[in-house]
């Protein structure tokens, strides 16, 4: 019988409930990355409409000027801001910046790498994404 590796799988990978805000940030980073990739592909398709001339372009602009189009755009803004701000945090972390210094650990062994600096970074990314999204909504629906 082949040995089942008993992997947790994608369900376990994306479960954000067990390991604090860091794991929530990990999930949001992946989702926003995939969302931005989808947007990027859509964006190339969208701008290629100019090849159909002024009429084709205007038709397309009309299509994304609907309330649904505005909501999608505001989600893109939020994803963009979160991915950028959290991306800077993660890149600094990957470079060993702000992850604490090695030291003899004492019980109850709070991990120094999961420190307030990174938590502030994550909450800031979420907050800024929400503010940017609301601003985008205000601009688009306030027209």
């Amino acid at each position: 019988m082949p040995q089942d590796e008993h992997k947790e799988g994608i369900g376990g990978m994306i479960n954000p409930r067990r390991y604090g805000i860091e794991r929530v940030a990990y999930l949001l980073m992946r989702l926003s990355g995939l969302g931005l990739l989808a947007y990027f592909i859509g964006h190339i398709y969208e701008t290629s409409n100019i090849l159909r001339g002024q009429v084709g372009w205007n038709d397309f602009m009309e299509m994304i000027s609907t309330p649904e189009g505005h909501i999608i755009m505001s989600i893109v803004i939020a994803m963009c801001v979160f991915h950028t701000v959290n991306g800077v945090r993660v890149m600094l972390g990957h470079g060993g910046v702000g992850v604490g210094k090695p030291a003899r650990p004492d019980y109850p062994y709070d991990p120094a790498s999961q420190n307030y600096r990174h938590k502030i970074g994550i909450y800031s990314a979420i907050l800024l994404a929400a503010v940017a999204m609301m601003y985008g909504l205000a601009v688009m629906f306030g027209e």
Partner: protein
Amino acid sequence: MAQVSSVSNEQSPTAKSITLKISRYNPEHDESSGFMEFNVKYEKWTTVLEAILDVKKHFDHSVAVRYSCRQATCGSCGMIINGKPRLACFTKISELDSNTVTVEPMNNFPVIRDLAVKFEKLFDTHQKIKPYLIRDDTELVSDEKEFLQTPEEVEQYIQFANCIKCGLCNSACPTMATDSSFVGPQALAQAYRYVADSRDKGKDSRLKIIDDSHGIWRCHFAGSCSQVCPKGVDPAMGIQLLRGYMLGFSS
């Protein structure tokens, strides 16, 4: 056997009880895993391992569990307790704050039976990063020769030398959840432990091993490994410091 149980209850007016749900699975003849429930008495100090051993003693001796030291030193008794990887001998039932305690085998490790999992891959990846000092000379050759270190140099790696190879970090890691070839936080943290040791001269050969698409670059700094580590190793810190070194952020 029932008498033993009731005697201990009479002597312990403070004992409370919980439902202990134990995952049962024998890959040799079971299609899938299932749970068996037991009503277990516990005191403020009773550990999950003691509760499992109580079940083995009084209800079902066939429950498979691995343990040895019972004091968070041997790294044998890792399992998923109420959804998170923990050491059964280091987790008190009273601190779980739940009337039901569910124990399952650790994720990302093949199951031998019930709560016991195979550690071959963990030990393989641990060995792969060469977990020993590499240098041409040896302190064994001459009595006068010692590899002296300052307290500051010891501080650089001593935290990572606390690893008991329990595998909880590998079980919590989101990359391990999907990537069978990932070297894992345990081995990566040990790579840092030796690279940071001033006596070691094997940095280059070790870095070559982890500089791989399924090596250090697969860590996304989710930090779950550090949150479950029972010895304060903080693998996420070691991995990021090592990556910072490889990227040229630090010397």
